[in-house]
């Protein structure tokens, strides 16, 4: 009864307070954001989809239907690029997560000077990526790089070794650089999540006789699992779309060894002026990431149900 009277009063106040209908008022509030999204997301996306059905270049556009997609479906090189991209993503993200977890655990430990270490972990993330990558270019240089020099000094190689000149070493060198750039963010997110785990949980487990590894496995990991899953997705999207690192280090070479989907798309659309083919690749990237996100949401939901506190 009281609730009904209260609701009526609220309705009355609302009616008196505004001449604009409530639904219109709501639309007005979200209109700026909607306009913004339409201009910078929806329109370019629609335009990309349209272009993917065209043979488009500097000379003009011609409708070709699904031809761009058919070409991609039958291209062995494109298949290799897709496989390489996923391998690149899983390897890099896996390393970032493992290193991030180890780093966060160490930074969360009660060791002297940990505040200093927390600051020292930031530079790869904070300094401009291009500058960081140029640093790595020099590190990988066969004649002037410290890595090649060290390898010669300890006798691993007879002479200068150009890390970025060989297919396999170039790929893994790019992975290392990507991990170097991406790990600090993962580490700091894991660290923040670990610091949110109540100290009492560890003390209770310690009183019950649980050792460090048991506490890490049975308390820390389940408690930060939602953050691990979130970081896995975010990191996967960033890595999948990672462009600058590969472009600065190798431009996708040598002989396509570091060409991922995003590099391939850029080369096709911007370097070769084949906008239609490039757009088809971009659409495939959107679809793949869309599927990936759906799988992620499914798992996140599962994880939250499994590791959550049961609160409604």
């Amino acid at each position: 009864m009281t609730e009904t009277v209260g609701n009526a009063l609220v309705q009355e106040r609302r009616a008196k307070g505004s001449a604009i209908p409530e639904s219109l008022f709501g639309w007005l509030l979200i209109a700026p954001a909607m306009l913004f999204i339409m201009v910078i997301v929806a329109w370019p996306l629609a335009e990309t989809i349209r272009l993917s059905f065209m043979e488009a270049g500097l000379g003009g556009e011609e409708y070709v239907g699904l031809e761009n997609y058919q070409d991609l479906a039958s291209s062995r090189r494109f298949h290799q690029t897709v496989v390489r991209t996923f391998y690149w993503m899983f390897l890099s993200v896996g390393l970032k997560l493992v290193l991030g977890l180890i780093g966060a655990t160490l930074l969360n430990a009660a060791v002297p000077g940990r505040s200093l270490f927390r600051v020292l972990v930031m530079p790869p993330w904070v300094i401009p990526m291009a500058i960081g990558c140029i640093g790595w270019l020099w590190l990988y240089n066969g004649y002037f790089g410290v890595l090649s020099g060290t390898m010669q000094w300890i006798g691993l190689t007879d002479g200068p070794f150009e890390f970025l000149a060989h297919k396999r070493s170039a790929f893994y060198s790019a992975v290392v650089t990507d991990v170097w750039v991406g790990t600090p963010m993962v580490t700091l997110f894991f660290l923040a999540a670990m610091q949110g785990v109540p100290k009492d949980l560890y003390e209770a487990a310690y009183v019950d006789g649980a050792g460090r590894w048991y506490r890490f496995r049975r308390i820390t990991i389940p408690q930060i699992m939602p953050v691990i899953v979130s970081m896995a997705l975010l990191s996967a999207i960033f890595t999948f779309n990672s462009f600058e690192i590969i472009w600065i280090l190798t431009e996708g070479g040598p002989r396509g060894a570091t060409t991922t989907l995003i590099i391939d798309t850029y080369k096709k659309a911007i370097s070769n002026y084949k906008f239609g083919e490039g757009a088809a690749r971009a659409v495939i990237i959107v679809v793949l990431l869309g599927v990936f996100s759906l799988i992620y949401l499914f798992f996140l939901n599962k994880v939250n149900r499994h590791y959550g506190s049961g609160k409604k």
Partner: protein
Amino acid sequence: MATLDLLSISKSFGAAKVLHDISLAIEDREFVVFVGPSGCGKSTLLRIIAGLEEATSGQIMIGGEDVSAAPPVERGISMVFQSYALYPHLSVYENIAFPLRVQKLPQVEMDERVQRAAGILQLTDKLDLKPGQLSGGQRQRVAIGRSIVRNPKVFLFDEPLSNLDAALRGDMRVELSQLHRQLDATMVYVTHDQVEAMTMADRIVVLNGGRVEQFGTPMELYHHPRTKFVASFIGQPNMNLVPATVVAADASGAKVALEGGHEMVLPVAAGTLSSGDKVEVGIRPEHVEQDRPGLDVAVNVLERLGGTSIVYGSLQDGARFCASLPGDAVIAEGGSVHLGVAPEACHLFDASGDVLRRTSAPEIQ
């Protein structure tokens, strides 16, 4: 179950000494409550017993065995935390079974122990739920269940009821007292709430500034507080401390003049006092009577609780004075009232805050 002995325990955090040479002997199956204001060191002392903090000096004996250097799991203790420390991602069953999983106990024995604890704590139908789906009282019971399954020698409780609302706290107090009887276990319980201490404890340790002010039964603390601090800490509402001057004193009693000139002869062992000494008379609000010669009190606030009326007033010099009078007492806010007390109900404290033993107070067994 076992005895718990603390021998000269001291604890410092850097330059700050928080516990000063604490020695206690807790009997087997005794329910002992550490009580004191915030920062008095009661939780630190409990954590030292648990093995979560290391004492700077001193020894801890459980069941006659020195466990000072032993990790918590080897001390034969279990602890219930203020926050309950339940694992939010685990079910009630898994929370209770946690210590048993650590011990790698066979599944059959684990089931049996968890079911027994759940039965005692009326959690049998909640075992599949997660902590987030339980009420505060149920969560508290799960935390206690996790302690029970380990069959510890000593149970430690760190302010376990402070997160509950007043009504539930009352219920849980009764449940914990029943649990103590049922388990017949040695229990050490930390609280800042003197009502919890008085209602649950076999004996109470009153701590202040890292020192033991008094260790005794609840009624001993109530009738024979050793210091002014204990006297004012135990009892609800707090004891009034009225400044007075000694007129005459001998071994059988002390004649004192209260503020306002009223004189009383208090039956205390006052051999150490002499005429002119400044003292304080301790008067419990519940011992105050209306229209009895004594003090003129201005009534500032009057709380009618039905059975009793609590008067918050002030004396002529502005000092606060509280009285607990019958519910139908004829008093009005803004007026004044004559309040007195029987001399044998009064406590007398010397200038250093130590009590002069009452000679006519009830003897406590």
